[in-house]
């Protein structure tokens, strides 16, 4: 929770900075009319430069006024939030509200028409009745990756193969010494069965195998709760999103593992060699229109794909 707080403060700082540039770009015509001899104008040329830099960086933004809401996947939430902040910085008449709630919430809210955008880690057809799923239009805006992490006490394990992961997560391997680590029982920390992260891991790494249950397993609610539990629990292993692992507050507390000898990096997600990755889906009810369409285009555009996505540890979509 502390970590989320830090993230939010970061987003606020970005928002504040963008508001400042937006104001100064709006005021930019007047400094040019000022005589260069006047003293107060000494500071203004730098403002004009920064404003023109902003303008040249965002030629592709279509501004539409109005307000929309995006809810759903907490794994995608940091990206949507930062993109919304950037878009509102460019277009002062637009309000984009972003909140979490989980992939299921995103899908059901957008299907009911309560919100304009529903974010989900998994495809709508796997959650919703087909009549509702067929109304929704999928907009893939990013690739997202997940990483297997262990408690710091699990030394000597830097890589797990798919076969080793299957053995560990189905409860056949129960001690780290069997995979090159210390003599320490393995504690599995799951997300709930309904979570998109768990469904993706089960499909892509475990090949659909049934996970272990019982005394050596814990279940935690969110990426943040999982991170806390892994740092507090000896011998624990779990799976979290790249954006949470690469948070400078979390990274020193965790061991991130390779999968089949492939580093968990954004480059490897984009190149397709790292297999624990999936599309981040934003759903609209019918074709997107107005501000929703403008915002989705902005998310697929160069600023989000080139700057915000790498900063937040997601992978860009193929252009």
């Amino acid at each position, binding site marked *: 929770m502390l970590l989320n707080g830090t993230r939010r403060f970061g987003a606020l700082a970005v928002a504040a900075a963008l508001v400042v540039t937006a104001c100064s770009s709006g005021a930019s015509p007047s400094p040019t009319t000022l005589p260069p001899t006047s003293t107060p104008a000494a500071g203004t040329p730098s403002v004009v430069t920064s404003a023109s830099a902003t303008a040249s960086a965002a030629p592709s933004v279509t501004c539409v006024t109005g307000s929309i809401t995006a809810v759903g996947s907490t794994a995608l939430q940091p990206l949507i939030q930062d993109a919304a902040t950037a878009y509102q910085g460019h277009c002062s008449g637009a309000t984009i509200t972003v909140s979490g709630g989980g992939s299921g919430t995103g899908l059901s809210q957008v299907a009911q028409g309560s919100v304009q955008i529903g974010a989900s880690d998994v495809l709508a057809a796997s959650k919703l009745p087909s009549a509702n799923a067929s109304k929704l239009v999928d907009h893939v805006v990013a690739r997202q990756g997940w990483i297997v992490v262990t408690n710091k006490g699990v030394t000597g394990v830097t890589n797990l193969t798919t076969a080793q992961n299957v053995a560990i997560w189905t409860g056949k391997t129960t001690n780290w010494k069997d995979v090159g680590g210390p003599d320490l029982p393995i504690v599995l920390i799951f997300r709930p*069965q*309904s979570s998109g992260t768990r469904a993706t891991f089960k499909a892509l790494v475990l090949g659909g195998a049934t996970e272990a249950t019982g005394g050596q397993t814990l279940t935690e609610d969110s990426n943040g709760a999982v991170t806390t539990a892994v740092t507090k629990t000896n011998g624990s292993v779990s799976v979290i999103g790249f954006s949470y692992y690469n948070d400078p507050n979390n990274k020193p507390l965790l061991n991130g593992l390779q999968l089949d000898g492939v580093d968990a990096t954004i480059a490897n997600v984009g190149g397709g060699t790292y297999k624990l990755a999936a599309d981040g889906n934003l759903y609209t009810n019918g074709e997107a229109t107005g501000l929703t369409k403008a915002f989705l285009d902005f998310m697929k555009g160069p600023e989000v794909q080139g700057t915000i996505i790498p900063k937040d540890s997601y992978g860009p979509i193929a252009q």
Partner: protein
Amino acid sequence: MAQLTSAQRITGLRATPSLLERIDLPRRVVFVAAASMVAIVALLLAFIAWQGIQLFVKDGVSVGTIFSATWNPLADGGPQFGILPFIAGTIAVTAGALVISTPLSVGLALFLSEVAPSWAKAIVQPALEIFVGIPSVVWGWLGITVLVPFLADTFGGSIVISLPIVGRVFSMPGFLTGFSWLAGSLVLSIMVLPTITSVSYDAFRAVPQELRTGSLALGTTRWQTIRHILIPAALTGVLTAVVLGMTRAAGEALAVQMVIGNSPTLPASITQPVTTLTSQITLDMGNTVFGEPWQDALWTMSLVLLLISVTSVVLVRMINKRRMGS
């Protein structure tokens, strides 16, 4: 003249009430408040009951199968909604909390009511009030930060109690992780302590002073008076306190979820992770969609929680009826 009018109004002597009096606004306002409260409760009961039976009506799950121990909504052969682990976990964690909390709370209530000098009361009562005001997330946060690592570090190995000559009398596996039934019960016991204490305190204060003085006049000690006069006289009140504490414990979600590990299996040992109805509902509700069988199963679990709470209200009323009758 004005004073006379108001006096007449109070005693109802005036023959023709004014228009304002005939409308009687205050009475209508309180009536509407009471009626809307009843209506909200009735609507809530109806809504949860309706949603709770959808699993059986719409999704065709038979009532018997939910009392199995297998919870696996993604099972290969079709979803299995056995909610027994959650019911058992709720009962286990709640019972553990009451076992820890009841003696402490009743002792504290007796201390405040019978023993404490006024300066001690002046310290303990505000302290209890602060306890009530601490949000559950703070207890959970403390639990996960302090209690869980403490349990794992201190009782990590096997827990063995041995006596000289007799040898080992008790042994059980220790904590693999601190996330456990015991951690949940400990956190809950602190949370229900103020409830049980304040209701039992009122029960002890309600015992007529004559019983105390009469008993002491017969030459009993203070302890004998407490044991043979006060506790029997206040027993129904103390039972009410425990039932109210139980309701509070069974309904708590956040703090418990943070420390029990949420493993959907039947409770096996106080050192092992368990799960509860509330905790599973909060884990799954955001990730399931309205109308799918999985979420209908969560509504059924809400209905079970509601039944637990209705049962305890009935229990409290029965206890109080007995007290009135005797």
